[in-house]
């Protein structure tokens, strides 16, 4: 199977993001850019699949030249090639525009590498905007079968079997390829790059695809969703903190407070 994994570069999600009071925009200065968590799960799932079966994994990211860092990380953990879509304005797009560019990039990469992608994977959502839209929009754009929130893909006659995580269990699907699948958290973690794979990946050539490479003269479809600004959520006030050496005393104080506040 030939995989295309779409990766979004996001700020490190272990760093708490707040607004810069001067600009009222999210202050990302303390958070190093990295690949979105669910995108790395998608990469790992694809790499495990080709290790057990056959095929290759290509990664693509829409954004700026800077995204090459996270593409190189993808190559260090098993992708064989990677591309970034970067041009004027490609760093601030709505989900539908990103999906459109990914669709065009998929076609361009297929042409350049002389192959057809069987499975296009996206993380189920990014960890910054948490929109969860690009995968399904890409499937719509390409008019391909789609399964979302998947944790497992296996090969079957004429296509793939996909295990979707739901609220109450797992829905099993069979779909023809080519297809789009979005990935949730499987019960394993992505591998770490090895010292040598990382050093090799640093030397990998990551081609940039411009809008004109993709046959797009300008970002024609104007955004359907506009961002009007950011705000911080209302802060919750801390109440009382009980710090007693005796647990009995602490519980008594807490219960008295809860009863007084009619919380019980």
């Amino acid at each position, binding site marked *: 199977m030939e995989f295309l994994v779409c990766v979004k570069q996001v700020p490190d999600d272990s760093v708490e993001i707040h607004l810069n009071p001067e600009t009222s925009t999210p202050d990302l200065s303390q958070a190093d850019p990295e690949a979105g968590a669910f995108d790395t799960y998608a990469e790992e799932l694809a790499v495990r699949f080709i290790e057990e079966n056959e095929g290759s994994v290509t990664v693509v990211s829409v954004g700026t030249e800077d995204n090459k860092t996270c593409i190189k990380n993808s190559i260090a953990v098993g992708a064989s090639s990677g591309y970034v879509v970067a041009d004027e304005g490609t760093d601030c797009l709505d989900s*539908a525009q990103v999906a459109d560019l990914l669709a065009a990039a998929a076609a361009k990469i297929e042409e350049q590498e002389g192959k057809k992608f069987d499975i296009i994977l996206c993380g189920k959502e990014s960890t910054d905007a948490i929109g969860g839209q690009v995968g399904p929009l890409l499937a719509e754009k390409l008019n391909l079968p789609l399964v979302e929130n998947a944790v497992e893909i296996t090969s079957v006659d004429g296509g793939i079997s996909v295990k979707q995580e739901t609220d109450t*269990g797992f829905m099993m699907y069979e779909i023809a390829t080519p297809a789009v699948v979005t990935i949730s958290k499987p019960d394993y973690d992505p591998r770490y790059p090895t010292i040598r794979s990382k050093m090799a990946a640093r030397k990998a050539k990551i081609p940039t695809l411009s809008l004109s490479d993709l046959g797009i003269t300008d970002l024609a479809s104007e955004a*359907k969703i506009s961002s009007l600004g950011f705000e911080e959520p209302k802060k919750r006030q801390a109440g009382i903190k009980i710090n007693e050496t005796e647990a009995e005393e602490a519980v008594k104080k807490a*219960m008295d407070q809860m009863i007084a506040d009619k919380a019980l």
Partner: protein
Amino acid sequence: MKYLVYVELKNGKPSGAALELLSAAKKAGADAAAVLAESGCEDAAAETAKFASEVIILDDVITDPNGRPTEDFLTAALAKLAADEGADGVLLSAAPFNRNIAPRIASRMGVGCVTDVIGLTVEGGTVVFTRPSYGGTVLEKQSAADNKVVATIRSGSFDAPEEGAACEPVHKSVAVDDADLKAKITEFIAEAGEVVNLEDADVIVAGGRGMGSEEGFKLVEDLANELGAVVGASRPAIESGWVGRTHQVGQSGKIVAPKLYIACGISGAMQHVSGMMDSGYIVAINKDEDAPIFQIADVGIVGDVHKILPLMIDAVKAHKAQ
């Protein structure tokens, strides 16, 4: 302006989160037509009709093994119904199933999509949606061109709608092409364990890494039993296998807002806090007195959960006996 409001069922009734969408539509200044599409939804439709001026029951639904519409079917059906009804948008609750289909419906309608909405205002004729990003520490305001939109809205973000004169549900059918049904469902594998209804719980007792072990986590379950509460958990407790993933509260689990939330051995990482911040009253027990959970707790107890919880269970018993 008119929005379709998709009403899914929960235990045979219209879900609370879905009925709240009627309030959201009203606030946006839109007429709302409620749409139900599950097998045997007549009673739920009649219930919904008490709150809505128009209720549509979709017929000829293609269902999954659980009797619910398939994603492919509902995507196609709602997009077509919106066209038939001249609707400007579709509102859905932010359940995972709905989050899956919302962008696809938007794409077919040629409109934008906003997910996980927690509030809206109308400013100069524009509907402005508020939604969380960056794990909930930042809120973003978004609008859709011409207010044409498919939006998913988190439960608890709007009040329950007021009862009005009941309308008469009407049955409708839309033609869905085979080409729209690309994903074939072969089987549903239910996860062992009880149905966990965190979203509708009045009281949640949740445990985290500090519970230490599967055995330690039992204390959380014991207190929950005593309080008639639903058991929640933070990600470390889930990943350690002490409790099933359906109990997860937080960004990657359920977003909850019970009247009372008791956090046991949970440090208060933002992934967790963003899922329970809107609880009415928060009690936190943690041995680390600098744990961030104390910054949002109404009552914080600094201490060892393994000592505090058994005493609290006794205290709750005594309180109930009074």
